[in-house]
């Protein structure tokens, strides 16, 4: 079951148009630095990255579902019976298809409502080094802004993408980055927690006031 998802991911990756990895990493990098310059507060930047990721995620999910469907990869990908299946599809098919990276999933909680995605490599942060504490030469803000950059979650885009994608299939989740290679950990870990299962129904426009 797991291997078929990995294979599905591989097949879909092969069919996707590819982009230059450097261009991708550099574009993202300049987006982040521009956000940092605009907002200055890393917490706010994290929130913005998450929002950007959200609007990417809501579109990616349809692409994944439609291409999986069209390639006759079977219901292993498009139908998930429980959170475990969803987690595997997100990590093995989703990450593979869009980024070409191998992602592992694990760390399931007791009540099966949360899991972790582990990324060995992160194409977004290929050339990135977070400035270290005490580097005063490039510090321009008087309030010690560089210390705060340690609080920046550089890859927070992923959290938004996962949240947006799962929201489109009625799963409300919260994602956080727990471990980050940019901060010295050995791998990247994203913790995903299911908050609630949404129901179909009227949107906000129709609710009575």
């Amino acid at each position, binding site marked *: 079951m797991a291997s078929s998802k990995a294979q599905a991911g591989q097949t879909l990756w092969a*069919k996707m148009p590819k982009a230059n990895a450097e261009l991708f990493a550099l574009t993202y990098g300049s987006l982040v630095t521009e956000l940092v310059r605009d907002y200055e507060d890393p917490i706010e930047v994290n929130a913005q990255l998450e929002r950007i990721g959200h609007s990417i995620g*809501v*579109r990616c*999910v*349809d*692409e994944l*579902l*439609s*291409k999986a*469907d*069209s*390639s*006759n990869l079977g219901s292993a990908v*498009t*139908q*998930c*019976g*429980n*959170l475990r299946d*969803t987690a595997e599809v997100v990590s093995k098919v989703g990450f593979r298809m869009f980024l070409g990276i191998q992602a592992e999933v694990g760390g399931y909680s007791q009540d099966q409502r949360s899991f972790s995605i582990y990324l060995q490599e992160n194409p977004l942060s290929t050339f990135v080094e977070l400035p270290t504490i005490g580097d005063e030469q490039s510090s321009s803000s008087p309030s010690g802004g560089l210390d705060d950059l340690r609080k920046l979650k550089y890859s927070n885009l992923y959290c938004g993408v996962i949240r947006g994608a799962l929201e*489109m*299939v*009625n799963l409300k989740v919260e994602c956080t980055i727990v471990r980050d290679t940019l901060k010295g950990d050995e791998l990247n870990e994203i913790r995903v927690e299911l908050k609630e*299962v*949404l*129901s*179909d*129904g*009227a*949107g906000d*426009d*129709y609710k009575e006031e």
Partner: protein
Amino acid sequence: MGFLHLFIVNKSGGLILHRSLGPTAPKIGTNEWLRIGSTFHSLHAIAAEASPVKLPGNKNSGEWAHTNIARVTSTTFVRTCVLSFLSTILFLLPPWHFGFVSTIAGADDGIEQIEGGGVILRCLQTRTGIKFVLTAEPGTSGLDAVLREIYVLYSDCALKDPFYELEMPIRCELFTNAVDNLIDQAMSGGVMPR
């Protein structure tokens, strides 16, 4: 042997695209299209409810759920303006049981295909709640493959347009041109899956 219309209905029942695909397609005004879109959306769900057997994953297979639906609908049927009321019924669908079911929209219990005297209508419902509906003359084959390709085109052209808002009417020329090409291809040779 021809395709007639394509229409796409979003999660909440609003029509986001309607397109005529061939010369034989009947001319339908915009208002009527909107009506068709929301009617279909409601009927899609009601068909699942009305069926005597339900798939195991159906969210409404619980007893209490069934009672709620039936009570609401019984008082409003058999009216000529039943169509506008149908959409209100959907808003009272009970919340989804916790616990995973295989799809979001009731385990594919909704309408897949309608055959009439002069038209075949086929519907593809995606996991994200969007319905792609294709009508064609009887005897047209390959509707399923065409629908899936249209879903792929939607995710490639419409969703990737940064100015396209989700659930809003689609105004992407790229998408409509791609759909037209797909239909021409389907008419001449058949659509090959990717």
